[in-house]
C-alpha cells in the first residue's frame, strides 16, 4: 500500500471513497480505510480536504536496495553521556562496514550534545549525523522516531544497529514500521554474507533454547538491536577525526504526544553487570534474602559485584536490575561464581560466555555443572567462607 489514512484528521466525508478509481476505500466507523485494491495512485491524497491521507513511500517494499549504503549505529545518550553499548555497537559496526566495504556512521540525538561527536569519531565513526534540539534532550518515542526516520529516508543506510536497552527496544520497532522494514531483536551475533553482502542476524528464541539466524533480504535498512555486553568494544583512537552532518530538526504541535513529568532514579546504585569483571551470583539455593550479604563479601574480595538468578528476583529478594539471564542481563565477566543456582537454560543463556565459571551447588546433578569450569558440590554457606579464607591466606603470603 502506498497511501495511509491519518485517523486523527479523517472527518469521514467520503470524498476519497468516491474519487478512488479502484474502489479501494471503504468507510469503517466513520474513518476511511484503504483496502486491498489500492495501487498507491495517490488520487485520494489530492482530493482529501483535510490532508488526512498521505503517501507512504517508506512503507512500499518495492525499493531499490542498491540505493542503501552505510552502517549506522544509534548513539544512545542519557544525560549527555554515551551508553556503554554504543561503543560496543561501533566496534561491531566497524567490522560489518569493513566487510561490506562501506562507511560507519553514528546517529546522535540530544540537546547540546555536540561534544559527543568527537567521542564517536575516536571510537571509529567516519560520519556522525547530529540532531541537536531541546526537544531531544530526553528520549521520547515520537520525537526520536520522527528525526531518525527522516534521516533514514534522506541518507538511506543499509544497516542500523541499536542497543537492546529500554530505549533501543522502543525506538527500533517504531522505526522499522515507519521504514516498512524488518527488525531483529536482541542479536547476539552479526555476520555479513560474503556472497551478497547482506547481514545475518543470530538471536536466541524460545527462552534461549533455540538460536535463530534471521535475514532481511528485500527491505532496507536491515535493522538489529544488540544486547549490551555481547559485542567487543571499539578501539579508542584519540587522534581519529570524522565528518559531522547536522540534521534539520523541526517539530509541529502534536508531533510529540508524550510528556515526561518526572525522572526518578533508583536510590540503589545501578547494577552495572555488563561492566563487571567478577560476578558472584545467587539463586534459590541461598534459601533466604540475607544470603546476598555473604555473596557481597566474596564479591568485594574479588573486586566484583553480586547478581542473581530469576528465582531470587521473583521471590523479591533482590531487584530485577541484578538479574542475569534471558529476561535479565547478559554478562561475560572474567569470573562468574554461581552459588545455589541450578542453571535453568534461561540463566545459562545469560552467562555461559563468562571466562571462568565456578558453580557451587548441593545437588551434584544441577545443570549449572554442565557449563562450569570448576564445580563444587556442597553447601554454599560453608564453601564461600572457606574460599574467602583461602583468598585471605594468599593475600597474606603476597
Amino acid at each position: 500500500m502506498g497511501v495511509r489514512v491519518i485517523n486523527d484528521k479523517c472527518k469521514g466525508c467520503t470524498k476519497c471513497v468516491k474519487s478512488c478509481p479502484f474502489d479501494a476505500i471503504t468507510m469503517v466507523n466513520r474513518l476511511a480505510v484503504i483496502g486491498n485494491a489500492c495501487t498507491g495512485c495517490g488520487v485520494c491524497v489530492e482530493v482529501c480536504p483535510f490532508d488526512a491521507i498521505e503517501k507512504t513511500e517508506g512503507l512500499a517494499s518495492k525499493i531499490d536496495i542498491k540505493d542503501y549504503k552505510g552502517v549506522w549505529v544509534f548513539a544512545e545518550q542519557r544525560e549527555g553521556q554515551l551508553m556503554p553499548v554504543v561503543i560496543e555497537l561501533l566496534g561491531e559496526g566497524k567490522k560489518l562496514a569493513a566487510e561490506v566495504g562501506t562507511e560507519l556512521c553514528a546517529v546522535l540525538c540530544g540537546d547540546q550534545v555536540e561534544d559527543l561527536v568527537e567521542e564517536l569519531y575516536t571510537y571509529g565513526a567516519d560520519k556522525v549525523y547530529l540532531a541537536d534540539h531541546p526537544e531531544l534532550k530526553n528520549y521520547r518515542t515520537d520525537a526520536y522516531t520522527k528525526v531518525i526516520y527522516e534521516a533514514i529516508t534522506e541518507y538511506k543506510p543499509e544497516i542500523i544497529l541499536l542497543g537492546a536497552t529500554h530505549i533501543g527496544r522502543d525506538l527500533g520497532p517504531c522505526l522499522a514500521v515507519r521504514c516498512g522494514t524488518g527488525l531483529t531483536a536482541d542479536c547476539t551475533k552479526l555476520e555479513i554474507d560474503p556472497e551478497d553482502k547482506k547481514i545475518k542476524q543470530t538471536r536466541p528464541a524460545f527462552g534461549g533454547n533455540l538460536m535463530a539466524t534471521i535475514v532481511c533480504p528485500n527491505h532496507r535498512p536491515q535493522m538489529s538491536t544488540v544486547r549490551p555486553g555481547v559485542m567487543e568494544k571499539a578501539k579508542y583512537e584519540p587522534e581519529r577525526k570524522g565528518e559531522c552532518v547536522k540534521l534539520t530538526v523541526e517539530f509541529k504541535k502534536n508531533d510529540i504526544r508524550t510528556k515526561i513529568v518526572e525522572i526518578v532514579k533508583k536510590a540503589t546504585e545501578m547494577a552495572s553487570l555488563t561492566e563487571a569483571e567478577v560476578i558472584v551470583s545467587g539463586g534459590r539455593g541461598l534459601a533466604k534474602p540475607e544470603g546476598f550479604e555473604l555473596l557481597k563479601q566474596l564479591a568485594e574480595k574479588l573486586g566484583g559485584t553480586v547478581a542473581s538468578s530469576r528465582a531470587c528476583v521473583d521471590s523479591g529478594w533482590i531487584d530485577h536490575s541484578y538479574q542475569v539471564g534471558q529476561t535479565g542481563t547478559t554478562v561475560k565477566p572474567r569470573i562468574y561464581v554461581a552459588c545455589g543456582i541450578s542453571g535453568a537454560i534461561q540463566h545459562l543463556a545469560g552467562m555461559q560466555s563468562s571466562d571462568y565459571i565456578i558453580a557451587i551447588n548441593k545437588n551434584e546433578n544441577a545443570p549449572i555443572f554442565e557449563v562450569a569450569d570448576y564445580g563444587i558440590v556442597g553447601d554454599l554457606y560453608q564453601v564461600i567462607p572457606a574460599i574467602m579464607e583461602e583468598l585471605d591466606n594468599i593475600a597474606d603470603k603476597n
Partner: protein
Amino acid sequence: MKVLVCVKQVPDTNEVKIDPVKGTLIREGVPSILNPDDANALEAALALKDKDPSINISVITMGPPQASVMLRECLSMGADDAYLLSDRAFGGADTCATSTTLAAGIRKIGDVDIIFAGRQAIDGDTAQVGPQTAQRLDLPVVTYVQDVQVNGDTVTVQRQMEDGYEVIEVQTPCLLTAVKELNEPRYMSIYGIAQAYKKNITVWNHDDVNLSPEDCGLTASPTQVWRSFTPPTKGKGEMLKGSVKEMAAEVVAKLKEKHAI
C-alpha cells in the same frame, strides 16, 4: 471507556526441554499458556474496570483456532469480549506482519481508548509487536509500563528504565506495554469461568479485517528465518573433590594459576 488488551498464547518456555541425544527442542507436552506479560496487561485493564464497571474490556489475539482456549481464560478473568484473528494467510508472520494484522483487527473493533499489551512474549522476547501496532494505528505508545493512573483523557504512567523510571503523561487513545512489575494478575474465578462460556469469541479472517493475503503472514514479513539451531553449550569442566577446605583451596589455586585473580 473501551479498553483493549492484546494477548498471545505461547508455549511455556520454562517447560521446554532439550533432547539430550539429538540436541533438538522437545515440543510435545509443553503446555500453552497466556503470555505472562500479557496477563499483567489484562490485569491492568481489569483493575480499571474494578473502579469503573462501565468500562468494556476486549481481548484480541492472532493465532491458530486453539488460541480460543486462552481467550476463554481471559474472559474467565473478567474480559467482556474476545476476538481471534485466525487465518492460514496470517501464518509465518514476523513482528512487522503481525502488527499489520493486529492493527487491522483493532481498527475493525474501533473507538478504543486504551490498548494494553504485554511488553514481550516469552517465545520470541522481541518486545516489538506492541510499539509496531501503535505505529500502524498512529497512536502514541509507552513501553515498559510499571504503573498506570487514568484521569479522564489523561493517562499517567511510570515507564521502567534500567536505573529507575520516568513518569510520563499521554492522552487517550494510546497503547501501553506492561511489565511484570505493573501488578499481580488475578486468577480466574468460578463465577468468571461460568460466565466465560456464555460469552462469544469472534473469529475474523483476513477478509473480515480488510486485508489482502499479500499484506499478511509470511509474504508480508521483511525478515525471514534463514536457519535455526540449538545453541552449543560450553563443555563441562572439572568437578572438584575433597573436603570443603580442600575444594576451596583448589579453586583459588586454579584461578590464580590461570591469572584470573
